């Protein structure tokens, strides 16, 4: 299976990439790590006339400390996010989730920003990014703007990134010392989760953030569970009671992997497990 012919552009700066995007508009597709885009092109589900490869823009790679946040370049690979010491120290949840993306080979190529911009509802990074209150820095012809996580995910495979914009980096407010766990439920290894839960907690338990993967068309926060967990002691009973609220207000899909009510059941069970593991119980 070979993609339809396309022209290939390899800009070396964000400005060049934006100019190319401005010139080719809807006919162009951005290539980050390519681990979702190349299968789509090979199966000919999409046939852009121009592919703009961000791989040559070194400024989009890397993770830095920025005071009360860490900043992850959009082209940083899952493998590097998983292993980075700043991520482990200040946003452990992202390290845990990045470790669960697909398989080792894919994690060597796939990128943090590419996966978030792709916005697959079964993708592993949206829920943790949402739970941590990530801020998305987007560059466009008029300069850069910052989009809050709560506004970033719009619908299936749809984000707040405009057609003439590129996601350049993601700011993650520091959650220093918070425990974290990403609990992923799959039928076979290295597949998309049927449901997954991203949980991070301060103390045991003073505060909690819980994100849900594949429980709707976008990543979701389990806010009722978060509220119920605040001040709860991290025991099996206390956590499982709060986890009973995890599926409240969700409208998950029904498909071959599971019906909606089964997914809601999974969300409650996996939330209990994720929070207990995050709290070190």
């Amino acid at each position: 299976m070979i993609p339809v012919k396309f022209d290939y552009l390899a800009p070396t700066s964000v400005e060049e990439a934006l100019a190319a995007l401005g010139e080719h508009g809807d006919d162009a597709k951005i290539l980050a790590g390519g681990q979702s885009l190349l299968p789509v092109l090979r199966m000919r589900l999409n046939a852009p006339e121009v592919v703009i490869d961000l791989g040559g823009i070194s400024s989009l790679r890397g993770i830095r400390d920025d005071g009360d946040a860490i900043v992850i370049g959009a082209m940083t690979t899952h493998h590097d996010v998983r292993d980075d010491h700043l991520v482990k120290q200040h946003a452990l949840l992202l390290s845990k989730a990045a470790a669960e993306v697909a398989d080792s080979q894919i994690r060597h190529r796939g990128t943090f920003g590419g996966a978030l911009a792709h916005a697959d509802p079964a993708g592993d990074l949206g829920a943790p990014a949402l739970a941590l209150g990530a801020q998305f820095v987007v560059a466009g012809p008029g300069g850069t703007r910052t989009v809050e996580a709560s506004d970033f995910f719009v619908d299936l495979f749809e984000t707040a990134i405009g057609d003439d914009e590129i996601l350049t980096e993601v700011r993650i407010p520091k959650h220093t010392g918070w425990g974290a766990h990403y609990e992923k439920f799959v039928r076979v290894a290295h597949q998309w989760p049927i449901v997954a839960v991203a949980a991070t907690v301060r103390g045991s338990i003073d505060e909690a953030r819980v994100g849900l993967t594949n429980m709707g068309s976008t990543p979701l926060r389990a806010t009722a569970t978060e509220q119920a967990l605040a001040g709860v002691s991290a025991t099996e009973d206390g956590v499982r009671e709060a986890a009973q609220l995890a599926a409240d207000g969700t409208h998950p899909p029904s498909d071959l992997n599971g019906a909606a009510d089964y997914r809601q059941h999974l969300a409650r069970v996996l939330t209990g497990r994720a929070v207990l593991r995050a709290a070190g119980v």
Partner: protein
Amino acid sequence: MTKIELTVDGAAVSDDVEPRMLLVQYLREKLGKTGTVIGCDTSNCGACTVHLDGTSVKSCNVLAVQANGRTVTTIEGLADAAEGELHPVQESFRECHGLQCGFCTPGMIMQAVDLLAENPHPSEEEVRLGMEGNLCRCTGYHNIVKSVLHAADKTAGGVSA
């Protein structure tokens, strides 16, 4: 056509390729390196695994143009085959019979080498997790896992591509 220059199994190569050409196609059809095989062609099975700048990737999921300026190592470049040498992981697969039909083997070995470079003394569970992107339809994985653990014991952390 786009011009690419890269190093493959120690040799500098340069070519004009169509941007849509996959790295695995380039290796097989342009360079004749058919040791790297196409299994599923959907980036699931890992049979086409090679190393790009020293880490494992699925070469059916990388464009040849994305390898421009980089270094690729395939199963054919792991050891000096002309001298009859085998890489320690290749030897282990032979000694532990880590294959049946052999189709997944090039990818299994390339991923195992990557795994052992990152984690020289993996547990059995770490081997199974580290190899999760490589599918085998014959062995039930038992002897593959054994081969990787055997290579780790034998080389005591000295495995590299």
